[in-house]
Each structure stands twice: as structure tokens, then as C-alpha cells.
């Protein structure tokens, strides 16, 4: 679990089967394991009303197979979170009242799917989250506002403007990202080596 010392960072929980007929699962990589663990505790027929959106990333391919084996009403496997977002937004926009949402996997996935769900008017209380797998961070460059995905090092080079960024422990739910601030703004000749920090 990520450290809880960052006050602006959301607190993640554990998925558990919620009452209701319609369930939407969004997961990436090891997030599949959270769904599978939860499935063990779910009542019979639970997945008959479930949709699963899964982005395997570099996870073991057997995870996708095991999710399919839950026989959800709909199963979608996407190549990236970005690619999956438009259809996820559409699913959320047309969702019926009472839809339960379950988000599991990396913080970047949870953050972006949460954002989309809230924008679609889904109530906070009907969304569950569980963090699994990599601690990689989604980082917004405070200077150019571009987002760099899957950041594991400290510092990191902004994928957009190229500034060397210090990844702050300051998280925005609205942007679903941590804040990156130029680490050598005062003296650009100082180039601290990038070290593995968020795995």
C-alpha cells in the first residue's frame, strides 16, 4: 500500500461486493487480482450484471483469461488507459441509477477513472477503489501542464517540455496526478541523477 502520509492523496480501500444489479469494474494490470479476490466472496450470479474494462499492461496474460472466466455481461480489454477512456466515459454517461463502480490497479488508472465517474455524476459513495501493483505516479508538470504517465523515478523528465521535475507529494484528484516542479530551476547546471522511487 502507498504511504498514507500525503494528505492530499486519496485513501484506497478494498473491493467488496455491493448490493445492486449493475456493476462496472475498471482495472489495469494487477488490479485484476483485486477483482478475482472479491469474486471469491461475491454471491452467485453477481457477475451476470457486471461489465469489466481491463487494461492488462505488462501483467500476466492469464489474469485477463481468469477475468473472462467470471462470465461478466461485458468484457473489454484495452491496449492502454488512454485508449479505454472514451468508451468508459460513454458507459458512465449512459449508466443507469444505482450503478456500482469498482476501480482497481495503479493509482493513475484509479484517478482517471474516478475523475470520469464523478464527471458523469456518479456519487462518491457508490465508487470503491483498491490499489494494486505498481506505485508509479501520474505527474502533471506545473510549468507546461502536460501529464507524464507511469513515473517511477525521482526526478523525472517532463515528457512534454523536457524540464527535469521533482515529483512532489501533492496530489490533485481533479487532475488525477501528482505535481511535478522543476528540480533545478534555480541552477540548471545541477542535474541530480534519477533514482527508482515509485515502483
Amino acid at each position, binding site marked *: 500500500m502507498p504511504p498514507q502520509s*500525503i494528505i492530499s492523496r486519496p485513501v484506497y480501500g478494498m473491493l467488496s461486493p455491493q448490493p445492486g444489479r449493475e456493476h462496472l469494474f475498471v482495472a489495469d494490470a494487477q488490479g485484476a487480482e483485486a477483482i478475482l479476490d472479491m469474486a471469491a466472496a461475491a454471491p452467485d450470479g453477481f457477475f451476470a450484471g457486471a461489465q469489466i474494462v481491463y487494461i492488462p499492461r505488462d501483467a500476466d496474460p492469464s489474469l485477463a483469461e481468469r477475468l473472462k472466466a467470471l462470465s461478466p455481461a461485458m468484457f473489454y480489454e484495452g491496449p492502454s488507459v488512454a485508449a479505454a477512456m472514451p468508451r468508459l466515459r460513454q458507459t458512465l454517461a449512459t449508466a443507469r441509477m444505482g450503478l456500482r463502480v469498482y476501480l482497481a490497479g495503479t493509482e493513475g488508472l484509479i484517478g482517471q477513472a474516478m475523475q470520469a465517474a464523478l464527471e458523469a455524476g456518479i456519487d462518491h459513495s457508490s465508487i470503491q477503489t483498491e490499489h494494486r501493483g505498481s506505485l508509479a505516479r501520474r505527474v502533471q508538470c506545473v510549468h507546461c501542464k502536460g501529464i507524464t504517465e507511469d513515473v517511477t523515478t525521482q526526478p523525472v523528465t517532463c515528457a512534454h517540455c523536457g*524540464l527535469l521535475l521533482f515529483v512532489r507529494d501533492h496530489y*490533485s484528484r481533479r487532475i488525477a496526478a501528482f505535481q511535478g*516542479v522543476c528540480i533545478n*530551476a*534555480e541552477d540548471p547546471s545541477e542535474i541530480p541523477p534519477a533514482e527508482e522511487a515509485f515502483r
Partner: protein
Amino acid sequence: MGITFRQETFRDDFSFANSPEHIRRFPFPFHEDSYMYAVNIEPHVAGPKGSVLEHPIDVDEHYVSEMQDRALVLAEDPLRCQSLPHMTLAGWDLLELLMTAKAESYPEHFSLTRDGDRWHWVNRPLGIDDRFTFGDVATLPYGPMEYITRQSQGDFCLLDQRDGNLWMDAGIVTTQADWSLDFDIGMNFFEWHAPVPLAHEKGIFTRALKFLLNVQQGRPARRLNWTMTINPRLDTSPENYHKWGPDRTTVTPENVGHKVHLRVELQSFWRLPRSNGLVFPIRCYLISMDELVTSRKWARRLHRVIRDLPDEIAAYKGLTRYRATLIEWLSAHDDGAPTSPGFGPD
């Protein structure tokens, strides 16, 4: 007698300076020879004539030039002014507060005439003369918050109050001490304060929030905060940190006096009548070290404060790189004599 507005800059050639009267009225933030975070909130009641607290909303000799600097920042980066859709009413509340306060305190510079919803606002220093319908956004060139805060010194945060918390759901932020409105918008009181060291552990934010939730209409409160800035630059935003950050490496024993500035924020808290939100004006005052040491007491005290400041706070405020040079320079202005209690110069 009206205010004589200075024509000056807060960037490039940095021609900003304080007149002798403005040095005397500077809101020096240290009431003793040391500094630690505290819940330093007090009622925002009128202070002595001529002080920055004489009027509820202070307008000073830097007004016109500060408004020009704000316009430049907004033209470069429109994300410095944002308002979530539910905050328009609070924007009207703020417009009313600032127009009435200015017109009442400085009738020679501002006037407001109201005939029901039909308002007539005249801002002589900025050459503005507008008639509009209160509550009708289409009758103003900007949204109400942006319209009036383009005419008001200091940054402004509009807070929505719900679920026992305050939410930063609108604001205009162009003269900030290194924090980003664009990043923080939509956050609650604890979330946007997350980066501050030491204060959470001391329970300061829990107590401060409790106080703020109970601020009553017509009974505003205030506190002072401070940091330091190299060159009299208003826009020390994180957005532009890679542009102003190098200034911190330019401090030498020879130039401390005119490069290093104490930056004081007069922050106030006002309950808004229609929206039940709060407005949080953050008014920034700058003073160079040369100007500051014209008060012996301030010089002695600032030396001791900076020297003994906990390292975490010094780092958070960005002083680390030039702190030693500054302390050395200030020490020449500290003869070790005791200082009198309270904020004012001797």
C-alpha cells in the same frame, strides 16, 4: 488628498520601491524575535490611521502598477483565474464587498451608485466607468470575480463551504508565494495545505478550519503570513519557477540590500452573504532589506528570526540558498540590543 500612484514594475527592470511613508506602514509580521507556525488569527478591525489596517480593504501607492502586472500575468496564463460553475454567486458577493469597501474608504478614487440592480461603478485610477446589472453576467466584460479582482490588489480565493470543510472552488492568483491555483482548485482545506511542513502535526489546520467555518458575516478575521522574494517580483508562481528560480543564486553580500525582499501577506477571511461562501484575500506587501533596516527594531528582529528559523520552514519558504548571506548582512544591523514587544517600528 488622494493617493499618489507610482508607475513601477515588478519584473524586468524591477523599478518597484516604497515611499518613506509606505516603509513606515509596512505590515511587519514578527511580534517577537522568533517565528513558529501558530493559529495567528484575529478580528479584522480597523487599525491606526495611515496603517494598512486603517481600511477593511487597503489600497496603496502600488495599486495601478500591480493591476498592470496582473493583466500581464493573465494574458500569459489564463489558468491563473478559474471559477467552478457553482461559484458565480460568490463572485457577485465578492464584487459587492470590494466595490462598497473601496467606494466607502476612498471616495476620491472610487464611486458606486446603486439603483436596485442597476449599478454604476467608477474607478478613476484605472479609468473605468461601467454600468451593469448586478447578477447579470452578460452586462460585465468578465465574470464578476475576475472583473473586480482585476481592479483589486492581492490574490483572492473563493471558498465554498460544505460537508464541514472549505473547498477552493474559485480564485485569481497572480501574486502568490509559489503555489498553483490550477493544481489546487477543487481541493479542501486540508488537501491544499498538504505541502506545509510541521503545521499539520501541531493541529494548526484542524483548529484554523474550525475557526473559519464559524466566521460570521460582517465580522471578518485576518492573519499575517510571510516569506522572502528575490527582486520585487509579484508573480512567484510555481508555473514560472524555472524563470524566477535563478534569481535565488544571484544574492551576494553587496546586493542583499536591494535584491532581497521580505514578502508579507495580509490574509483576511470574510463570510459572503448570498452564497454563504468565504472569500480569502491574500494581499502581498514587499519591502527591500535596505528599506526595512531603516527601522532599527525591524532590522534586529528580522536578523534573529531568520537566524533561528527551523530548517524545514526555511526550506519550505525557499530561503536555503541565500540564507547564510542574508544572515551575515543582517547581523551588521543587529547590535544585540533588546527589541520592544509588538509589531510596530520604534
